[in-house]
């Protein structure tokens, strides 16, 4: 008995088992043939982890940091990558939601044991994440997407974060500081109640520049103001890569300021994503086909992003939801 029978008795609960079935050779049955068709997809598959909630640190009435046990994801994730999460219970929204990996958690020996999510309550899933209690579980699929490029040690790296857009910069800051790259974080929000973890970055050796629109912390106004001043003052010979994540208007301003001075940027876009795997085409963004090209095409930000060169994004064609 071959059709289906050849798979009988083999629990297909994990990626490893699935990969074993893929590798199995059965000339008679048709089903493994179709499984073989997906071999390439399976090989590059992220891990789907039923992650234990270790802690939930509510920073304010809006922001919280959830720590999750997920060694497989923590060991593989690179700066700027994301996970797709959902609660696995009836009544939870069907589709997963994308979240940047925030901190990497490590044990005493320095081995990655999990990661955290920086969350802000805005919708159904972010409210559920805010309410999570230790001991609960969160289904996490990842790591996904293209990471930030980590600047050359000889140059400098600037990170520009708006509010919860800080999330992808914890891993990037660690990677930069590990290789000795001088790093600066420009971190802005509406008020002091949007700025957290500044000290965490300072302890890594990152220079932190703060701005709030209401002036309740740091410089009063938009974070792009000190950014623009420092850009203008930077010696032309200094190599620099600017990374930005936050509201679309902020990222657009950063990309255009930098471009005017011939500086490179990477922006982390946050479109609505249905699957995070290239399947649903809900996260397409318009991207120029070359650095100077007039032509643009829609690409899936889950596969080709979420990190894009700032001068490739066709900002005025980004959907309003972005």
């Amino acid at each position, binding site marked *: 008995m071959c059709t289906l029978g050849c798979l009988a008795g083999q629990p*297909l*609960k994990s990626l490893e088992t699935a990969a074993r079935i893929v590798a199995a050779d059965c000339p008679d049955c048709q089903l493994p043939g179709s*499984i*073989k068709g997906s071999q*390439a997809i399976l090989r590059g598959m992220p891990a789907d982890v039923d992650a234990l909630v270790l802690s939930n640190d509510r920073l304010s009435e809006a922001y919280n940091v959830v720590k999750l046990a997920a060694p497989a994801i923590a060991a593989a994730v690179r700066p700027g990558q994301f996970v797709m999460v959902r609660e696995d219970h009836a009544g939870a929204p069907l589709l*997963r939601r994308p979240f940047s990996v925030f901190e990497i958690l490590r044990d005493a020996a320095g081995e990655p044991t999990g990661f955290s999510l920086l969350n802000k309550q805005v919708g159904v899933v972010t409210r559920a994440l805010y309410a999570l209690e230790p001991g609960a579980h969160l289904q996490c699929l990842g790591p996904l997407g293209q990471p930030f490029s980590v600047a050359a040690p000889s140059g400098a790296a600037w990170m520009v974060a708006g509010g919860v857009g800080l999330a992808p910069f914890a891993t990037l800051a660690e990677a930069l500081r590990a290789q000795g790259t001088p790093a600066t974080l420009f971190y802005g929000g509406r008020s002091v109640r949007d700025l957290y973890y500044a000290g965490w970055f300072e302890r890594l050796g990152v220079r932190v520049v703060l701005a709030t629109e209401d002036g309740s912390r740091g410089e009063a106004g938009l974070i792009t103001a000190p950014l623009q001043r420092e850009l203008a003052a930077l010696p032309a010979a200094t190599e620099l890569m600017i990374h930005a994540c936050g509201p679309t208007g902020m990222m657009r301003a950063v990309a255009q300021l930098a471009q005017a001075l011939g500086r490179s940027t990477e922006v982390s876009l946050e479109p609505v994503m249905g699957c995070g795997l290239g399947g649903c085409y809900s996260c397409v963004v318009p991207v120029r086909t070359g650095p100077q090209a007039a032509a643009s095409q829609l690409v899936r930000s889950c596969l080709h992003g979420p990190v894009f060169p700032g001068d490739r994004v066709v900002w005025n064609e980004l959907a309003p939801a972005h």
Partner: protein
Amino acid sequence: MLNAIGLQGIGVRRFIDERLPPLRDQRAVVIVNICGTTVHEYAELARILSDAPGVAALELNISCPNIKEGGITFGCSLQGAHDVVAAVRRATPLPVIPKLTPNVTDVASFARAAEEAGADAVSLVNTFLAMAIDVETRRPRLSNVFGGLSGPAIRPIAVRMVYECRQAVRIPIMGMGGIMTADDVVEFLIAGADAVQVGTANFVDPFIWPKLLDGLTAYLARHGHGAVRDIVGTVEIPDRSATTAPQRIST
């Protein structure tokens, strides 16, 4: 899942040049879903794909609610459905599988029209035309206003429609609509589907289909069946007074 993604295909020429070769290399069974705005376009697509090595069958999208013309306009008229299927039938030796929309009063009559026009099988169901409103802004959640509803919310309706079509046609049925578990697969098979498709669940769990195969295998073993075909259309409707089939409920 409520979507208004539309059809983001790259065009038939690029599909043949870029997407088909890697699928062929991996010996995947490729069923190409095609959509046109005129009967002629469907036939032309079918002709082009018939000459491309590695295409196993054609599924005709006469049911997408998210495109402005073509598609669902054929799927909502018996004559339109018949004409598209007949034209594609004449244009290709490949198996022809129209995908039916559930947004009609009597889906079985469309399955019959497809069969009479020479379809080799039918797929059902596509998404249900649906709408959601953000109550804070009072605006539709989708910029298209309407979208197509899929996922577990539609499964019982899809199962009913597969059952209705099974009574109406002899050609094979591919059943789909909200399959999330192996029991859902079995349910469609028992209702009369010869095969199933899984869409939305892949977005939630990319490892869904090995789990479905595992569960289907376990079900067959538990019930002493050697093959999937042994359970197709085996729903047992309890004998009731005059009829063995459930009546449509009029309200």
